[in-house]
């Protein structure tokens, strides 16, 4: 099994390079998730309060979502004025996809909250902002995290595409491996990518457990919330 040996030997011999590329890769995968959540949640709330604006935003976001990442990576420098080699392009492109995907599921999640719960919060004198932050938002965490998990897995795979236009990431191992005719290097890149996806996914599962203590106290969740979550996971 020469190639297994090749893979095993590659890792310690290129540890510094692997560390650097993994770091770049993580930055480009995680930042869009953070920005995506920070942008999508307020937009989703706006979309719920203003139906026509919401419909327009959803259409615009699904159109942007359709644009292939490579085309987006090529175009963004033109629009943003960044260097074509800049990680900013990848982060912005993936943030756009993240917002598009999260906005839709967040609207669904916010809509799925029992109206009685909202009215109870209003009756207790919560201001709309406080109600949104302490009632609506926590209750939609499971659906939100389900969407974030989908995004994290696809982001980690998509970041490597940036290597085609020279943005540093684990994708560098693929482009470099192809030009040098070095399949072991590509295999290492794939394995590290899979590992990153797995670790990030586990962290997100953990985060959900931390953020939703009440699901463990009372296992019975509303059927609708569970169904919504299942659908987002299926996506």
């Amino acid at each position, binding site marked *: 099994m020469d190639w297994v040996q090749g893979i095993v030997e590659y890792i310690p011999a290129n540890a510094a390079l692997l560390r650097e590329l993994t770091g770049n890769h993580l930055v480009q995968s995680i930042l869009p998730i953070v920005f995506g959540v920070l942008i999508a949640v307020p937009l989703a709330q706006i979309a719920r309060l203003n139906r*026509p604006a919401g419909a327009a935003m959803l259409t615009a976001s699904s159109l942007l979502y359709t644009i292939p990442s490579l085309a987006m990576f090529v175009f963004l420098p033109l629009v943003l004025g960044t260097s074509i080699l800049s990680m900013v392009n990848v982060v912005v492109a993936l943030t756009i*996809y993240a917002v598009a995907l999260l906005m839709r*599921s967040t609207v669904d999640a916010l809509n799925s909250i029992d109206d009685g719960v909202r009215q109870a919060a209003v009756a207790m004198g919560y201001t709309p902002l406080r109600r949104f932050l302490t009632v609506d938002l926590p209750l939609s965490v499971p659906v939100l995290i389900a969407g974030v998990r989908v995004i994290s897995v696809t982001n980690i795979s998509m970041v490597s595409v940036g290597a085609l236009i020279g943005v540093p990431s684990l994708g560098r191992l693929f482009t470099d491996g192809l030009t040098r005719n070095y399949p072991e290097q590509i295999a290492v890149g794939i394995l590290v990518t899979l590992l990153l996806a797995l670790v990030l996914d586990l962290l997100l599962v953990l985060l959900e457990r931390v953020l939703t203590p009440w699901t463990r106290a009372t296992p019975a969740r509303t059927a609708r919330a569970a169904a919504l979550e299942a659908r987002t996971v299926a996506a």
Partner: protein
Amino acid sequence: MDYSSSNLFVQMGEWLSDPVNWSGSRGIPMRVLEHLGYVGLTMLIACAIAIPLGLFVGHTGRGRVLIVSGIGILRALPTLGMVFLFALLFYRGVLPSVWALVLLAVPPVLSGVYAGISSVNRTVVDAARSMGLTEWQILFRVEVPNGLQVMIGGVRAGILQVVATATVVAYAKADGLGVFLVEGTQINDNGRLFGGAVIIAVLAIAVDGLMALIQKFAISPGLRATQPPAGPLKESGRQEAVASAQGGTT
């Protein structure tokens, strides 16, 4: 190619409007056809694998955990790496690239078919069973027509991803629309680079629009009469499921 201006948008416009780029075996129409050829072949193989599997798991409920985790792993596979790895391990031809793309297309189709079948109301299925329909009749006369929109949503998501990702094939074998990006980068021809990117984006939007249309008309006649009127945001559960069955893009 000589451009009249250093402005990248002007160069893009000039490249796109030059008739030379619209003819011959290296022209835009030919590259679009190549690209769609890859997409078609990939989707054919992916559907042949994913649809029967999704129908089986959706109908019987057996192997649910297995396919959900399998889908997760396949989604995490970087397609770029798989295309290049297959190109080196086998040969730089059409088929290794197609197989790498199949790995990308299977998860959305499989989860769409599975979600479509399991989204059908269980009482409807039980009613069909109590009326004496065989399992095959239940599957094809009850579950498939009821879940069709969600199922097509899965295929649509798969096609969108493959149209987007078939671009990277050009880096392994000079085929499809990615070629304009490869050449544009190599010979520092920005008109070609941005023009190519525009064509890829337009093709993706056009194909997705077509699939959206097909999806819209894929309602079984028996269901159309009972469809509740859908507002722009307050859509029926069916359409929500359709929307969220459309996974990521690349």
